């Protein structure tokens, strides 16, 4: 899980990029959700993927 300050800075930049504005209470909730997503992403983002394990635009079984 990344440092919370790093995540806060990233989130603030992303919000500015997308023109999103929230009040202080919503910002707190938003940060909590972002931290949760970061901790979940930790399960799979740094795995060693093979070059042919590509994501598909439309998943087909």
């Amino acid at each position, binding site marked *: 899980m990344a440092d919370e300050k790093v995540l806060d800075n*990233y*989130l603030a930049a*992303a*919000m500015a990029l*997308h*023109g*999103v504005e*929230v009040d202080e209470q*919503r910002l707190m*909730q*938003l940060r*909590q*959700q*972002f931290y*949760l*997503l970061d901790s*979940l*992403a*930790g*399960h*799979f*983002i740094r*795995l060693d*993927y093979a070059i042919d*394990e*590509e*994501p*598909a635009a*439309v*998943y*087909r*079984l």
Partner: protein
Amino acid sequence: MSAELLTVSACAEAFSRGAVSAREIADSTLARIGQAAGLNAFVAVTGERMLAEAERIDRARAAGKALPPLAAVPYAVKNLFDVAGVTTLAGARLLASNPPAVEDAVLVSRMHEAGALLAGTLNMDALAYGFTTENTHYGATRNPRDTDRSAGGSSGGSAAAVAAGLLPFSLGSDTNGSIRVPSSLCGIFGLKPTYGRLPRSGSFPFVDSFDHLGPFAGNTADLALVYDCLQGADRRDAACAQRPAEPVAAQLGRGAIGFRVGRLAGYFDENAGTEARWAAQAAAQILASEADVELPGTAAARAAAYVITAAEGGALHLNDLRLRPEEFEPLSRERLLAGAMLPAVWVQQAQRYRRRFLQQALALFRHFDLLIAPATPVTAPLLNQPEIQVGEKILPTRPNLGLLTQPISFIGLPVAVVPLWPAGQLPIGVQLIAPPWREDICLRAAYALERAGLANARIGQRR
């Protein structure tokens, strides 16, 4: 509705032999829906349309025409299906000012052609993002088994209406568990077909990567009959496989003998409470499970599903999240917004992980035809209950009711849910999971559990 009309097959048969008219069925259905208003299962009742469909099918019978398979059978749909003349809300006030749908969703059209009578649209979590059908703007749907409890979600109205005996079947959607969770908590049968099996054309999307549509019913035979009428490709849905229909209803009697069955342990045991573990073990015993098996990487699969869901759902609604945040469900708004802010590489890696996890599951299916797991960690929680206890763990209720369903829909496998009843307890569902495109295996196993007396929907009964 009299007891004999509470199943799809009994209803169609009674109509076919002339014991009852479609108009009488429609009238009694509408009366029951009115009496059960306290459940808050329905968002809109399409009485006028239902009576018109009933008149049409009565005329067909009077003219001696061949009757379609669901002739005069009442049903309703989650309110993310387009119904001509009705605004598609998807549980969201955000969409309430949209004009009414111009035409029916493909699956609603297919039900019309099959002779079914549409009673209305059903309540859900806003934008399908939730597992409890606690909807701030349209109210919570109450569980008919105990009205202080959640019906599950997001297709809570669809499950509650069937469990209460208002309708013999309904349609819903399942992105991360939204058919399987309410089936489990309301104690009825549900089917999430293989990803790409049923066309989603004319339904409001949530997460295109995972969105599935499917039926709920009070028994396996009804579920299979409805599923057979829903099948068929549609090119308007890019994810819909161009496969011919593969009917299942006639195969149910073949049972589950010869299936190689495994019970999923590891992650699925660790995230299951006492009743959930009992249910999976009881089903495994009846189906002669050969082994307890682990599906490697399941926790990461659930994590990746969660990330993709937030990202795709958030991206879908980003403009409105920016411009009209007050119109969103407060219970999920910040989850959606956080998802829209994610780095792209997280989402791409989550999609790559999906390939890997599918390969893990397919490797298991070289040794097994059917895998068994609980559908929910616990039985129905109280409405507004903030946390559930799963073994030693205390977890937030809303995101975690899907702990056991999310990893499976992540890779699109077909799943039937059957209801079991721990002694003196509320019902809980078991997932019967098969390889891609083998809904027949799920439904034959469900039928076998029903025939063995283990699975039963106890329609219309409180616990």
